[in-house]
Structures are given as C-alpha cells and as structure tokens.
C-alpha cells in the first residue's frame, strides 16, 4: 500500500540540511533538493502549531536574484522589469515588496515572484523549480539595462505564525515595527540579513534571507525559542492551500493567465487599460482584454461537502450525470485548521459562481463540492 521512496542521487542540499536531519526531518526530493516533508511532530501538528504559535520553514531552495540598474537609477530597473510583469513596479517604494508574475507572450504565467525595492536594486524571490528559466528570461530581456545577479550563497528562512513577531523580536529589535510587505536589510542576531514581513501561510510572519555561512546559526537561534518548531513541506502545502494561495506548476502555469488564476487583484490600475503605463508587458493584449471582458475560466475555492479529500487532477462536472467536464481540481487535500477537506481548481466561468455546487469524480463516484470564497482561513497579516 505504500510507495517505496525512490532514492535519487545528486540532490542538492540547502545550507540548513544538517539542521533538518538533526531535527528528525523526513527528507524527500523536491525541485532538485533534498527537503524535509515533515518532522516527527507530523504534518497535522506542524500545521496547527504554525497557526497557533510559530513555525520555521527552510525555503532556501527558492531563487534569490538581485536586479541592479546599470544607470544607478532604480526606476530604470523597475521600468525594465515592468516589461515582463503586469504589476506596477515603479510604485514599489523603497523598503516595500510586491507580489508579481512573469508573463509569456500568450499571457500565461511563467512564474510568480516577490519583488522588493532595496533602494539601490530590486530583490526578487522566485520559485525553486523555475529559477534557472527565470534567470535566463531576465538575462534575455533585461541585460541592456540591468545586471542580473543570482544570490546563490544565501539561505531563506520563513518564520510564520502569531508568535513569529515575538520570536524574531528577541533577535531583531526592528521586527515588531515592520508592516506586511515591508522588506529591507536588518540585523538579526548580529548578522546582516534581508528581512521581509511576508510569507506563504496566510499568517503574519517574516522571510529572512541570510548568507549561507550564517544560516545554521540563525535557524538554531530561532528554533531555541520554545514557541518555534521546524515545519516541513507537507504543512507548508496545507497552510498555503487553506490561505487560498497558488502553488506554481499546479494552480497556475503557462496555460493560465493571471485573470484566469483570479490574481487580477495583483495587477494595479496603472498597468491596465487607461492607466499611466497601460500594457507594455509580454502578453498584455490578452490580459488587458480579459481584465475588461472576463476570462473563459476561473480559479475558485472548493469545499467538498463530505469528508473525503478531493485531490489534484479530479475532473469537475455540473451535476451527477453530466458527461461534459467543466473543470478540474488543481490543489486539494485536508485542511487541518478547518478539520475538513479543502481544494481549489478551475471552472468554466459560467459555472464559477460563489455558492454554487459542482461534482468531482473520485473512484467512480461523483462527490459534491461548494464553490467557496478564498481564503478558507482568514488572513492574519499585520497591515
């Protein structure tokens, strides 16, 4: 009944690998790295601990990239990056961060990312599985105006949950004063770090970029706090799913646009039709039209009415007998904070009505799901 682990050689290690192993992490291959899927506490307790206290996540496999304007003027880097994303990057103030997507010529999402303004340069955090392609994409399109510098010798530690502020505050006097999406250099435990007040769990929290050589000491200092437990990728996935956040390669990819993905909240007015810098990015024609006219399909939240989790790939139908598929689940599992199964997926727009009911086909049965607003668990960001 259990699949055997496929032992994969040549997996990369993050700077925190030894900490995971020492903490009893169950290591699995993920995006080319040997990563902890869970610790002895287990996914359920790790999830609930993050929502009630604080969890420490190693996200060092993600890509960190500095985008430096050759002119020395940050606005040149911001305007250059705006050619690749539909977001207003010029308006990201120094010390602030914004969620964005790299878009291809067809309007599809190449990756989603965070963009921070560090004054002299932009600081990007991209997905692990996409980082080589993202770097090549930046070099291909922005080399005329920007130096593209992958920061390969850095770790990234996420500290998430209601006690993240107090836990980080013991090592970083500035932590409590930061607001959601503030980002910049801070001293943590007397080490120079880049700290943002952000994360991917729906909780308040921080992401801390630190030089690889100091990563282990910093992680151990944070884990020494009784409120902080190490959290694996399993709980990271259930936390982000309850928060209604997309997992790249599952809920969004090159076949989905930001409007189809219900991410139009992340596209500022200045880049839309009639805005100060309308369009001017790859895929703009399609995305601007979809912003005005709507998209043929939409990402929606789905709550199975029964207890059975409905997982990625399950086809969706309008009723129990219909043979016409109207969508599919892209992420699904069990939400420990909801104590119920939870999912998200795409539906033909005419069916994508909050409060509506659709049916997933699972093991030869049609199971009802409610189309639900997201997030499933309210956000706890410190705005």
């Amino acid at each position, binding site marked *: 009944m259990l699949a055997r682990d496929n032992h994969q050689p040549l997996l990369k290690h993050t700077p925190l690998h030894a900490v995971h192993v020492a903490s009893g992490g169950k290591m699995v291959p993920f995006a080319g790295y040997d990563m902890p899927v869970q610790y002895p506490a287990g*996914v*359920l307790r790790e999830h609930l601990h993050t929502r009630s206290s604080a969890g420490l996540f190693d996200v060092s496999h993600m890509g960190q990239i500095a985008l430096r304007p050759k002119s020395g003027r940050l606005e040149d880097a911001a305007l250059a990056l705006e050619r690749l994303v539909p977001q207003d990057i010029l308006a990201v103030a120094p010390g602030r961060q914004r969620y964005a997507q790299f878009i291809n010529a067809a309007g599809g999402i190449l990756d989603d990312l965070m963009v921070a303004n560090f004054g002299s340069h932009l600081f990007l955090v991209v997905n692990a599985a996409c980082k080589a392609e993202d770097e090549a994409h930046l070099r291909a399109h922005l080399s005329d105006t920007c130096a593209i510098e992958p920061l390969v010798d850095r770790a990234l530690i996420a500290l998430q949950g209601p006690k993240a502020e107090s836990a980080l505050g013991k090592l970083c006097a500035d932590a409590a004063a930061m607001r959601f999406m503030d980002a910049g250099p801070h001293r943590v435990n007397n080490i120079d770090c880049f700290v943002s007040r952000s994360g991917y769990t729906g909780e308040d929290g921080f992401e801390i970029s630190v030089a690889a050589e100091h990563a282990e000491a910093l992680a151990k200092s944070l884990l020494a706090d009784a409120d902080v437990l190490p959290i694996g990728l399993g*709980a990271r996935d*259930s936390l982000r799913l309850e928060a209604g956040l997309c997992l790249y390669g599952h809920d969004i990819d090159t076949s989905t646009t930001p409007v189809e993905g219900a991410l139009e909240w992340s596209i500022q007015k200045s880049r839309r039709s009639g805005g100060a810098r309308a369009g001017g990015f790859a895929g703009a024609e399609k995305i601007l039209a979809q912003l005005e006219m709507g998209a043929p399909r939409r990402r929606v939240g789905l709550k199975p009415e029964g207890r059975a*989790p409905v*997982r990625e790939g399950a086809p969706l139908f309008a009723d129990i007998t219909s043979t016409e598929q109207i969508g599919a689940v892209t992420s699904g599992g069990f939400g*420990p904070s909801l104590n119920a199964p939870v999912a998200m997926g795409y539906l033909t727009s005419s069916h994508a009505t909050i409060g509506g009911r659709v049916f997933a086909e699972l093991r030869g049965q049609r199971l009802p799901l409610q189309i639900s607003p997201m997030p499933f668990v309210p956000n706890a960001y410190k705005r």
Partner: protein
Amino acid sequence: MTTLFTSDHEWLRIEGDVATIGVTDYAQSQLGDVVFVELPKVGRSLKKAEAAAVVESVKAASDVYAPISGEVIEVNEALGSEPALVNSDAAGKAWFFKLKIADKSELGGLMDEAAYKAHTA
C-alpha cells in the same frame, strides 16, 4: 487465532473462515496523520490484490488492497468518524474490514510476524 502479514503492510487476523484486516503500525507511521478512510461496501466480493479501501493522510491517498479473496461481511464504521484511530491503534481498534475467506490456500503466501518484522527491519 493466527495473525498474518502482507508485504504491503496489512495484517490479517484469522478466526475460522473469517479474516479481519487492517494496516500495520509500521504503515501508519509511514502514512502520517490519517484524516479519512474509505471502506468497501458490506457484501462486496473482493479478489486478491483488488483495491479494497483508501486511507488518506493530510498529504496523500493510499490504496489498501485485499490481501486475499473473499466477501466483505463487516466494516469498521468507527473509522468514518475517527480516522485517527489508524494512528493510535492500528493493530487493534482501527481494523478496516472483515472478509469471509474464499480460498484458504491464499493464506499460504502471507508472512508470519517474525517474517514481517524482518521485512520492515
């Protein structure tokens, strides 16, 4: 009463011509926190190696296969309301279903406890 095991981490408790079937403690430790169990319908006739039940953790779904052929005569309804029993008492209260054994010769291919211990060692 004899207890036998499969290489897929199920146990069978044989009493006369009835086999009570569950998953082993080793299996539950590998699965992690169980949040849902789907059981076969009473009266269903299962063939050996046929998917009989589903056990789901937060992260993944796993099939439980019929270790021998037979007719389902009883299922453990308690697992519907309390799937975490699989984690707390895999070898006892968290039995999955009972089969009326169709062919006792199929028991010959199963492991005893010592062999199963060696299998998971």
